[in-house]
């Protein structure tokens, strides 16, 4: 119980769950786990089962795509307050990229099986979770489109 209280507090401190009710936060704390990653630790690997998502509490995580025979392509960096890993919501539940800590990272993971169970039992919770994720996904998509435009490229 003490551990869950501590995790509930960590969830409250993170922007993703900051505005949630204490009841839901306490409920979801049962799916949470605290993590520490050192620089260059891989948090997730492309193609592996996406059995959790992560809330970054401290440090920088780079999302990168492995390219055989070449250096990985760096896609994006995430920082304190960031969230990554929505593959747990989309079948076949596999990571779509590598996630690597570039420095000491402290993060909270949310277990996917546990979350799905709670969402199946309480559809309002599931709706709230999706409502929280979708704007983040939309902003990520918007940022990707902006980068595709290559606005800083030469106009020649």
């Amino acid at each position: 119980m003490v551990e869950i209280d501590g995790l509930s507090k960590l969830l409250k401190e993170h922007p993703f769950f900051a505005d949630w009710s204490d009841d839901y936060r306490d409920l979801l704390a049962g799916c949470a786990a605290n993590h520490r990653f050192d620089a260059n630790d891989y948090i997730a690997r492309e193609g592996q089962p996406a059995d959790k998502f992560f809330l970054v509490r401290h440090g920088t995580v780079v999302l990168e795509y492995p390219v055989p025979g070449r250096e990985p392509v760096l896609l994006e960096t995430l920082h304190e307050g960031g969230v990554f890993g929505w593959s747990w919501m989309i079948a076949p539940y596999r990571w779509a990229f590598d996630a690597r800590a570039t420095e000491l990272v402290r993060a909270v993971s949310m277990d996917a099986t546990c979350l799905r169970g709670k969402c199946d039992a309480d559809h309002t919770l599931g709706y709230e979770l999706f409502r929280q994720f979708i704007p983040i996904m939309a902003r990520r998509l918007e940022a990707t489109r902006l980068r595709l435009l290559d606005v800083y490229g030469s106009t020649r």
Partner: protein
Amino acid sequence: MTATAENRAAAVAPADPMVPRPFRIVRRQRELSDTFTMELTAEDGQPFDFRPGQFNMLYAFGAGVSAISISGEKSSGRLLHTVRAVGTVTDRLQALRKGDVVGLRGPFGRPWPVDRARRRDVLIIAGGIGLAPLRPAIHHVLANRGDYGRVLILYGARTPDDILFPKDLKAWRSRFDVFVDVTVDRAAPGWAGKIGVVPDLIERAAFSAEDATAMVCGPEVMMLFTVRALLRAGMAEEDVYVSMERNMKCAVGFCGHCQFGGRFVCKDGPVFAYTDIAHHMTVREL
């Protein structure tokens, strides 16, 4: 812009705005593969006053004229222009060396609202070479640091190799009274900084949205996305200023080349309150 600032800007305009003055290149510095800075001094020895955000018309004799923002002042009368070589005139300017002479008309245009921003948080947001027209505003704010609230400089570039004025960014970042954040669109392994777009930096920045002034300069699409992020963060349209770029020729509102809706970018801009041009920024034909 306050009436005082307007008067000052008008007061420094030359007597005949269509007559270029000769300026000599006293120093030339490569910034990026296609970008360089020229330090100019007037051949007639007369002082040159300008306001942050204003621009000059630079003549590469025999090639033509181009509107170039003033990117700083080395000392009184020594002007800096940072130019990206993207066409006939700017290519010719790039080929000039120390000792060569260019023609100059100016300064023109409405400046950044550095007076109106006093006692407020200031967000200076640049993308690519857009940092050049904002650098005089940064110098002004830092020279009068006590007059402003929190000062944030947010900058985005294409890659780490395309970051403009890296020494300046490092110097500003080393101050305890300025927040500087830089991101790039793409990077190779080994880059320890941020990868992402400028609007992402706004989401993480700490400022008082109800009591802040934002000055934004960069490619138009970048500015559009940036303004959306600022409005999402709670800023009012009238507190957001953008610097527009159009094909300027006369710089005094006669020729119409830079017409933007009912306004001329050379005369009514290049700095506009977003609220004044918001309805034009998404008109494709403009």
